[in-house]
Structure formats: C-alpha cells, structure tokens
C-alpha cells in the first residue's frame, strides 16, 4: 500500500515487532552465547549476558571427545545425498506432469501427497525389519534412501508448481524455432527452471537435515547424523550446558543460514503450492 504512515505509528510498530522477534529468537541467541562461556558461567545465577571471557574451548572439547566432525559428515552426506538422489527422480516426474499433463495427473499428484501423510510410526517395524534383512541398519546409504523417499512427494510437488509457472507457449515457441527435445531442455527449460530447482533442493536439505524420527531409530554409532548426536545429550554427566550449546550451535548454524535464504520457497514447499 503506497501510503504514508505517521512516524509515531511506525516507531510503535517497530518497537513491538522487534521486542517479539527478539523474544522468539532468544533461545537460539542464548544457546549461541552460552556456547562461548565456561560451564560455570553457563549456569551462573544471575545469568551472565555479554561480558564474560569468550572462549572457544567448548567447540574444541566437543570435537575431541565425541568426534563431532564424523556426525557432521554423516548429516552432510545423508541430507545432500537424499536431496541429489531425490532430484534425479523428481525432476523428470515433475517435468512430465507439468508439461504433458494427462487426465491422471491430478490424481497422481494427490496420491503422492498422501504418501507423505503416512505416519512414520505406523511403518517403523517393517522398515526396521527390512533394514536388518538388507544390512542397511545404521548405514548412511539406508538412511539416505529413507529420507529421499519421505521427501520425494514434497520435491515433486514443489518442482511441479515451479514448472507449471513456465508458460507452455515459451516451450512451443522453442519448438517452432527449431529446437529439438534436447535443445529445448538445455537452452530454454533448464535456465528457466534453475531457480525453482535450487529452492527445492534448499528446502529438501533443510528437511532432511532436521529429520528426527528415522535418523533416531535407524542409526546407532556409525551412521548417526547430528540429530542423533545431539540426542545423546539427553542423558548427560556433569556440567554440560556450554558443550551442549556448542554442539547445538554447530548443528543448527548451517541450516539457519540456508533457511533464511529460502523463506519464500519454504511456504510454497510446505503447503504443496496451496499458498504462494
């Protein structure tokens, strides 16, 4: 709305919004701050805010004692792998439904969505059993596959809504201009689809990174990603707040950054294109 608002009103909005924003963000801020404190400072009453001896000690300890980088690496492989693998299946599927729709397209899309609604706990044991049979339990490849499958519907949907926005007339124009299927995909479709593909991948990495049902139940020591590593702090020994904070900060930092870049796409992806 092109409308001038009184400065007073705007100031009031700003103060309230920033207050609420900081309140909501506070647990994350506090975690980050605590990760730089000593364990004693971390539980001090009254709490210490900014004026303490900032230390990187916790990060060093977390890495040394629990081999943090291995869990990080597992997370990277599982989230990245499931995303790449999923895209290889989802891009052709979404492409075909968006550009060569049939009478069944709508039903297929809705059915795919319904598989996403399947409660994981309902199929926990069968998957567990299959994983034991195939030797996939506590393996990165097994978890990568499962995460790919649970997020595949979202990937297809999101790509579908992006592809749908590419006007069919442009592809027809390319065809009239003499482009074959290969050239059409290479010179026209891909450049126009890249933003959509990129945001789909970002959202999927976030979802896979934070997934905490299958990662907790299908891994033990070898393939455990960060979600499972952090869960090991639920039965701690001694003072551990600062170390928990350091581990948590490292686990959420990459995703916070990716997430902030893909706010808009998040809405589209998580509502299956129903809200844009």
């Amino acid at each position, binding site marked *: 709305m092109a409308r001038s608002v009184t400065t007073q009103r705007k100031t009031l909005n700003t103060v309230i919004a920033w207050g609420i924003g900081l309140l909501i963000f506070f647990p994350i801020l506090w975690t980050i701050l605590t990760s730089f404190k000593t364990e004693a400072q971390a539980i001090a009453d009254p709490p210490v805010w900014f004026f303490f001896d900032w230390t990187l000690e916790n990060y060093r300890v977390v890495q040394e004692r629990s081999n943090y980088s291995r869990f990080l690496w597992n997370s990277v492989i599982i989230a990245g792998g499931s995303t790449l693998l999923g895209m290889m299946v989802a891009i052709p599927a979404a492409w075909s439904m968006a550009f060569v729709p049939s009478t069944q397209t709508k039903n297929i899309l809705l059915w795919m969505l319904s598989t996403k609604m399947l409660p994981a706990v309902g199929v926990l044991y069968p998957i567990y059993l299959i994983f034991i049979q195939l030797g996939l339990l506590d393996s990165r490849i097994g978890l990568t596959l499962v995460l790919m499958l649970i997020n595949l519907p979202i990937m297809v949907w999101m790509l579908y809504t992006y592809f749908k926005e590419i006007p069919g007339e442009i592809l027809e124009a390319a065809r009239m201009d*003499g482009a074959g299927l290969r050239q059409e995909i290479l010179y026209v479709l891909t450049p126009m689809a890249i933003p959509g593909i990129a945001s789909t991948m970002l959202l999927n990495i976030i979802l896979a990174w934070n997934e905490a049902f299958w990662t907790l139940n299908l891994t033990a020591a070898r393939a455990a990603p960060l979600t499972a590593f952090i869960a090991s702090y639920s039965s701690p020994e001694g003072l551990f707040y600062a170390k928990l904070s350091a581990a948590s900060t490292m686990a959420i930092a990459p995703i916070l950054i990716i997430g902030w870049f893909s706010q808009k796409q998040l809405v589209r992806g998580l509502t299956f294109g129903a809200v844009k």
Partner: protein
Amino acid sequence: MGRIVLDKVTKSFGDVTVIPPLDLTIEDGEFTVFVGPSGCGKSTLLRLIAGLEDVSSGAILIDGQDATSIPPAKRGLAMVFQSYALYPHMTVRKNIAFPLRMAGMDKAEQNRRVEQAADVLNLTAYLDRRPGQLSGGQRQRVAIGRAIVREPSAFLFDEPLSNLDAALRVGMRLEISEMHNRLQTTMIYVTHDQVEAMTMADKIVVLHAGHIEQVGSPLDLYRAPKNLFVAGFIGSPKMNLIEGDEARKHDAHTIGIRPEHLSVSSSEGTWSGVVGVAEHLGSDTFFHVHDTGLAETITVRVDGEISFKHGDRIYLTPRNDVMHRFDKAGDRLP
C-alpha cells in the same frame, strides 16, 4: 512460397470434437485472418497448421507437400504468440537469433540478420536488454523479429495484439500490414476482433464452433454475409436484425440493415421512435432508438454534425437496396 491447404482436417480432444471436417486453401502471399468468438476453434486451427497439435484426421499440405506428420520445426513456419513467449533469460539479440542458432547458421550471418531485423523493427537500441526490461510493444516487436529472421514460408499470428493497449494496438496493426506489403509472405492471423480482421485481411475466414461460416474478402463479407452469424459478427456497430411482421413484409424471416444504411429525419420516415442513448464520436454519432414498434432497439450511424438528444422523436428510413434478408435457418436469401 507458402501455399497452405487443409484437407478434411478434424481435431477432437477425447470425445469432444473441436473441429469437424474442414477444408481451406490459403494462397501464397495471402494475408488470411481467422476470426470468430472465443472458443470457436480458431486458435486450435492455427496450432494444427503450426504442428503444435496433431490433427485427428485429414491432411495439411504446405506447398503441395504433405506436412501432417512433420514436426513444427521442420514446417518452415514462424509463429508469434499471444503472450509473445520470449525467452526471459536471453537478451533481445539472443532471442531473435535463437531460431538461427537452432538451424546451425554461422555466427556472422546470424548477427547480420539479427541486426537487419532490429533495424527494421526499431529495436537496435535494445538488443542487449532482456525481455523483462521492455514495454509490451517492444516485446511484441522482438517476437516479430524472432519470426522474420527465419524467413519462413508463412507467418502465424495468434492474437498478437490482445495484450497491448488500444493506441499501441492500432500502431502495431499498421506495422504488421506494412510488413506484409513489404515481404509479400503468407500470413495467417487469428483474432476475435473483427476490426483487426476487416482492416488487415486479404481474406477473412469466419469460424463458429469449429465450422467455417464464410470465407471471403472483407468487403464480400460486409456486403453479402452468408448467414446471420456472419451478419452479426462483421461490422461495427452491429447490423440491426429485425424479425416478425416487418421482416415478413420483405418475404424473409429476418431482415438485416446496417446502422449506416438508415437515413434519419425529424419529421418523416418508415419507422418512428425515441432516441435513447446518443454516442458522439465526433466524426460519427450512434443513436440507439427505442419505441419504434419493432421488438428490437435500432442502432443508427449518422454524420457527427446531425444532432438529436436523448428523448427526441426520430424517424428512420432503411435503404432497401442494401437490405439483407435471411430465411428461418439463418441463411441469406438471394
């Protein structure tokens, strides 16, 4: 060369027949306009010629060669789309050069042709911009540029002016007509706007529900519409169509008289009525006349200087030599 023949072409989507068997010949160099209300199948017909849709049966011949199963790119036709369909990620130069690049033409020749086209279309200053930075009229020119560089045997236009504002539309209409005069290439132009059809066409094809109602030059259609549909569609304001006793006096089910073929008087005439709305265009004035004793409101077109006001009594006399008569089925009586 670009002589296009449609031989008993049909198109159906599933159970729905959009185009029943249809024959049409478009001569080389002709400017043909497909006109009709929305949903009449005119765009579908164009897309069948382009090869963007498969025909359900029948054949399409381009320059005597059966093109029915030739893919769109190989038909030697160029198309200008309603939405312009420019490639948003390419500059104007690359957009125009795209068909040449696809044809594997060498870079120097590509550049020469692009620059020539840009010169003709006044696009030289914009060659390095992207479509998003251009106005509607400029985008339209880029789309035309992309079509002409290929030197196609025929141009296909799918309602190319419908996204432009009124003033620009008139300008582009002239430019396309001039282009046709210069290139003398076959052009097929789809529109729902009968003014565009009348002003641009050598030959108008009036379509209605997939059928061809009439084919002819603009003046043929104006002078001798074959049926009620064409009579009502061609001409602006619309022809007055009168049924009932008045029509029976002329041995017809319906008579048609164009608004410009009625003379007016303040004292005497065949019909007398009351002026409802008077639309003053300056050069002309349209009166909508009620209470004439006929069921229909009669529209009259007169010189802009003749003045009647709302509520004035007016007398109308039709010119019998240009009256159109139709039978019960809506077909023209001789």
